[in-house]
């Protein structure tokens, strides 16, 4: 019975649940999971294989694995097996020659290439050219080096084949180290905790959020109050103008800022004409880069807060203002004692809402300074994105990027929960009145 009651509601909700579960919850979960792996572009996202590479052997040698064993792993072994014979036939080696090999050498094993070639030279139907002989010989050679093994068991079998009397522990180490897929690890978090860059990024992020937020709130307030006192026509011009940054597609907006601040751009040309230092302000120096990052985001934020503050101002009963004028308050006193107190909640709202979106959004920075010059204007979210998905060198580290994103999500969700309390979320939840 209770379930039936929910049927209709769940029906209506199911499209939303489906989309949100697939594209919100799944990504959250995946990000959380990947944060504990070393997944990267080289490990791939699905499972991996086992490959023993030269690099791996060098690494193992440095880690103190017995060098003799490692040398043997690197050796090529020549073995006349039915598979190798088939391989040779398929490769177009003279069938008579292959028949010779089969007849005389089947089952033989050579660890030295020269010895094998010598044997081949002694066969009746050997090829004339020495090159052809070498090609044929190579077809019988096999090395464990650079061979892909689908799973650990196959890799182990191959390693034991080469090193029949190596201790179990050594084999285990080699097999484990040869895995190319991703692995579980807490290394991402350890790395974040120990890296000196982390602190820098945090400082950058805090500075960016605080500065942009202050700009947003103060400019928004100034605009809202300013237009409130101006005649409607003049005020209209400003409010039209200030909504534009929010409406403009982000690429165009970023490009306009580039035009405004780059070499040959507006400010550059103007500065040149006035004999002031002219350079690429967006990328040329740290203070100008920061200024631009804050302005680019601040203008968008200010247009948001201006709308909110303006509508709150319109809700103030005009009689209150008249009364204060009758009481002899100056314009400034009116703003200070009548207007600002009534904007308390909108201001609080803008601060909380913008904190979250500034913390998590990086599009504007990405498209303008992209954290430059160097990484001086990079913030946490941008760095996470760049680490995981947008690296110049192509070395995409999904695991590390996800770990950074997870930390951001934790901060964001914590803040959201606090804000929900603050804005009395409970008042917004009512019970359905139709009970059937």
């Amino acid at each position, binding site marked *: 019975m209770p379930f039936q009651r929910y049927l209709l509601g769940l029906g209506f909700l199911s499209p939303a649940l489906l989309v949100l579960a697939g594209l919100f919850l799944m990504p959250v979960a995946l990000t959380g999971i990947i944060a504990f792996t070393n997944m990267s572009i080289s490990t791939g996202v699905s499972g991996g294989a086992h490959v023993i590479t030269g690099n791996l052997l060098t690494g193992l040698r440095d880690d103190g694995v017995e060098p003799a064993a490692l040398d043997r792993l690197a050796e090529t072994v020549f073995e006349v097996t039915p598979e190798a014979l088939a391989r040779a036939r398929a490769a177009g080696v003279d069938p008579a020659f292959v028949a010779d090999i089969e007849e005389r050498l089947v089952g033989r094993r050579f660890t030295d290439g020269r010895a094998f070639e010598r044997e081949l030279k002694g066969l009746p139907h050997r090829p004339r050219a020495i090159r052809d002989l070498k090609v044929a010989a190579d077809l019988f050679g096999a090395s464990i080096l650079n061979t892909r093994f689908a799973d650990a068991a196959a890799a182990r079998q191959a390693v034991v084949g080469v090193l029949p009397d190596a201790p179990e522990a050594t084999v285990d180490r080699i097999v484990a180290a040869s895995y190319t897929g991703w692995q579980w690890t807490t290394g991402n978090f350890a790395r974040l905790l120990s890296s000196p860059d982390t602190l820098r990024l945090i400082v950058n992020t805090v500075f960016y959020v605080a500065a942009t937020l202050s700009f947003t709130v103060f400019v928004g307030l100034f605009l809202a109050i300013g237009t409130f006192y101006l005649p409607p026509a003049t005020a209209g011009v400003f409010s039209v103008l200030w909504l534009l940054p929010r409406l403009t597609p982000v690429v165009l907006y970023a490009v306009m800022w580039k035009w405004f601040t780059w070499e040959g751009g507006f400010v550059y040309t103007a500065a040149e004409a006035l004999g002031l230092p002219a350079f690429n302000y967006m990328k040329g120096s740290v203070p100008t880069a920061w200024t631009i990052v804050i302005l680019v985001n601040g203008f968008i934020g200010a247009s948001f807060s201006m709308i909110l503050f303006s509508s709150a101002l319109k809700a103030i009963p005009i009689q209150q203002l008249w009364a204060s004028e009758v009481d002899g308050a100056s314009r400034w006193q009116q703003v200070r004692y009548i207007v600002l107190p009534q904007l308390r909640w909108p201001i609080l709202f803008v601060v909380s809402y913008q904190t979250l979106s500034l913390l998590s959004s990086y599009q504007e920075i990405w498209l303008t300074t992209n954290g430059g010059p160097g990484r001086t204007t990079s913030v946490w979210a941008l760095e996470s994105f760049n680490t995981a998905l947008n690296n110049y060198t192509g070395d995409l580290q999904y695991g590390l990027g996800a770990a950074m994103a997870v930390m951001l999500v934790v901060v964001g969700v914590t803040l959201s929960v606090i804000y929900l309390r603050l804005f009395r979320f409970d008042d917004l939840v009512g019970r359905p009145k139709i*009970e*059937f």
Partner: protein
Amino acid sequence: MRLTICDFTKTFDRTTVIKDMNLVVEDGEMLALLGPSGCGKSTTLFAVAGIHRVDGGAILFGKRDVSHLPSQKRNVGVVFQNYALYPHMTVFDNIAFPLTIRREGKADIDRKVRAIAELAHIGDLLARRPSQLSGGQQQRVALARALVRQPDVLLLDEPLANLDARLRLEMRSEIRRIQMETGITSILVTHDQVEAMSMCDRIAIMDQGAIRQVATPSEMYRQPASRFVAGFLGNPPIVFLDGEVTGDGGFASRGVSLPLPGRLRHLEAGRPISLGIRPEHVGTSGGARVSGQVVFVEPQGRETLFDIELEGGAILRSIQPAGDDARVGDRVDWAVDSDRLLVFDRHGNAV
């Protein structure tokens, strides 16, 4: 169709709002559900309508138990306090909506809508939208929409609360006329006693989720079952004096003594009772007399209302045809119609 509410209980979030309520509305009768705000009138109505679930007991239409049927299967017509007309539809479409839901034929719908619109005197408004109607007209549309599919029961939740005084008077008689013409069993929820008394066959008085008394209007006024009912009905309201029975079959309290009505002379002396005195029973005619000082005068046009303070400090209220006899501060000596006094015991029940 006879409507029976049997041991009805309703609980919201573990607070029981209505407990074991019983009520019967006879076929074709119009019953007023009257009570103070928050006593559970709307809750009862919504349970009958099938909007709220019942948490205990049963609701029967005739012999059919509808307690667990959804609204759609009950065939109830409801008129809401704010009319709940569909703003995006014309009056015609509003009234026709229940019929289109039933997929009736176009011609049928047209005929029925016009007939009911005639009955409600809104035949010429069918093309308008609700926002282009006055309050009274919206009320008529809501009524027409509730009636058009001939419901078994008609429920009206404070239908007149949003109208101005003059329209209220007009719609009072209109609703009653239409109800009588259609003969549909109806419940009218109201907290206005005049409405209840003037429009309905019987009144059920509710308080704190329970029915206190069910009776015809005049019976309820003259013989209230409890102190609560007596206090709730009557405007200006009744005055209560707390005291006890004296040896000679009278009543005494704080310096007031009055004879009890003839049929109650036998009460044993010393029993604590309270006396209810309606304002119209204090003044010019009656067997007993009280004297005191006028402390308040409120002229109401045809009548004048007085408060007089008796020697012991008790206040009595009197309403009399207008004249220019007494002023504030005057000492008066007025008659009390002691046969019409109401007597209640310690628990507030009528004796």
